[in-house]
């Protein structure tokens, strides 16, 4: 009875590009060497790793030697925050971040607070911006690090990390940017940007899960969080997963924001045009400063869990996929001033490389039908159900 699923959850993860999986399969079949070994088998694997590092670096404007491979953006965020803030245990240490960061930053910040690190959480504006002035105002003489994401994973709003970075540089404070949602999708030139650490991932970009990287500007030092080997300049111990890294390199090589971003933005805009016909539907996040692949919409008057369940043949998210099991409303939307109820009745749609044009009107029709049914079910409900 159920219709074919339409996948509009690219911000959660993306299908692996066939060219990526083919390259990875070939690597798995042929190159089993340990890239740290000095013999010929190991050196061949090392060459593949370094070629991938160069491809990733080329896509984000980073010298390859400034990239440390990790297991993904979550590990990169952990390494960045803990690696910087646990360098000097003797003195008071302060972190500035925002209330609308990904859990892989916020939960690390909370853990660091338990260990005595002072943390300031900057509020977002109702349209999803983290204003550079507010971030820079929060810096104190003890501040060692500011961590602000580039593109918000729930709203797609692009934060002004260049202005934040310039202010941080002027104050001698490091800036970490989580670019999991932006790398390969919006322009990013790390060598030219006032960014000191930057987290990258492969799987949002049609690459494999389980691999990412952390960019470190030349003057940045970290204490490693994994011990047991001297891989990655002793910053990340563990045998390098050659096939994963190769897959990330291929994904970054294939990603072409100049070509893909306009198409994705057009799909996103068509989707919004179709959804805007639903009474009361409203976008979350500044439409004028947003990555092309994400659209977040509230549908007042419908209960969020029922909406998502009614749309189980449409792959979308309530917010971050990493918090999908949590009954709590999106901290990003409540951080932008939405009520718990309205945040719950919001859906994140995200398009990607393999989204077909004809899926857009069909997806919108399914949403419209589900919203209409649930609103009828809740007819005469009190105002708080819609506010």
């Amino acid at each position, binding site marked *: 009875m159920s219709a074919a699923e339409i996948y509009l959850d690219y911000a959660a993860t993306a299908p692996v590009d066939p060219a990526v999986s083919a390259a990875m399969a070939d690597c798995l079949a042929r190159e089993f060497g340990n890239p740290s070994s000095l013999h010929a088998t190991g050196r061949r694997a090392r060459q593949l790793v370094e070629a991938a590092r160069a491809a990733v670096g080329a896509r984000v404007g980073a010298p390859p030697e400034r990239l440390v491979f990790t297991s993904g953006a979550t590990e990169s965020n952990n390494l960045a925050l803990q690696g910087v803030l646990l360098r000097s245990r003797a003195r008071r240490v302060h972190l500035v971040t925002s209330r609308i960061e990904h859990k892989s930053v916020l939960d690390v910040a909370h853990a660091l607070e338990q260990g005595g690190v002072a943390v300031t959480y900057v509020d977002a504006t109702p349209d999803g911006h983290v204003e550079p002035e507010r971030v820079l105002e929060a810096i104190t003489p003890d501040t060692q690090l500011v961590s602000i994401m580039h593109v918000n994973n729930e709203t797609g709003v692009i934060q002004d990390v260049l202005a934040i970075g310039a202010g941080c540089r002027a104050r001698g404070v490091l800036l970490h940017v989580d670019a999991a949602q932006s790398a390969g999708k919006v322009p990013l030139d790390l060598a030219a940007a006032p960014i000191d650490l930057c987290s990258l991932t492969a799987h949002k970009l049609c690459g494999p899960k389980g691999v990412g990287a952390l960019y470190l500007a030349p003057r940045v030092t970290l204490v490693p969080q994994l011990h047991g080997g001297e891989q990655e300049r002793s910053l990340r111990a563990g045998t390098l997963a050659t096939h994963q890294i190769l897959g990330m390199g291929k994904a970054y090589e294939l990603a072409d924001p100049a070509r893909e971003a306009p198409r994705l933005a057009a799909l996103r805009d068509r989707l919004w045009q179709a959804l805007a016909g639903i009474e009361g539907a409203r976008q979350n996040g500044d439409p004028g400063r947003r990555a092309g692949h994400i659209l977040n919409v509230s549908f007042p*008057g419908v*209960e*969020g*869990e*029922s909406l998502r*369940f*009614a749309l189980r043949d449409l792959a979308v998210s309530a917010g971050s996929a990493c918090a999908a*099991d949590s*009954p709590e409303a999106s901290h990003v939307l409540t951080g932008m001033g939405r009520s*718990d*109820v309205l945040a*719950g009745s919001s859906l994140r749609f995200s398009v990607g490389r393999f989204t077909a044009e004809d899926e857009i009107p069909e997806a919108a029709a399914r949403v419209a039908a589900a919203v209409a049914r649930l609103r*009828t*079910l*809740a*007819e*005469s*409900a*009190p105002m*708080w*159900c819609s506010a």
Partner: protein
Amino acid sequence: MEYSPAVVRHFDAPHWARELPRDAPGLVSGDAEDRTLHVWIRFQLQLIDGVVRAVGFRAFGCPHTVAAANVVAEWLEGRSVAKARGIDVRGLCAHLTVPVEKLGKLLRIEDAVAACWRTYSQGS
């Protein structure tokens, strides 16, 4: 969140999710809500000659809430008032395997039905 087949069935086709005519004879209505749980329920019972002739409900809530309300409505319709007043909502909805953290929502269904009985008692 996992949903039992019974929840899926009742959520997808909640036959008793309807509005009974406001001027229907013997109509009583009861609301209950819990804003922190994001749940609101309205039950309508048409009580004629000591029998629950028709039932309707409206719900703002999760799939378990909608399914449970439908199960309750289905059970109530056609019962004598005497039997219907002894309804055991939790027992009736046991087959829905409602997660423990959602049992508070079933209480709101009980409250809405209880509100109907209060109105009935006041009127009779």
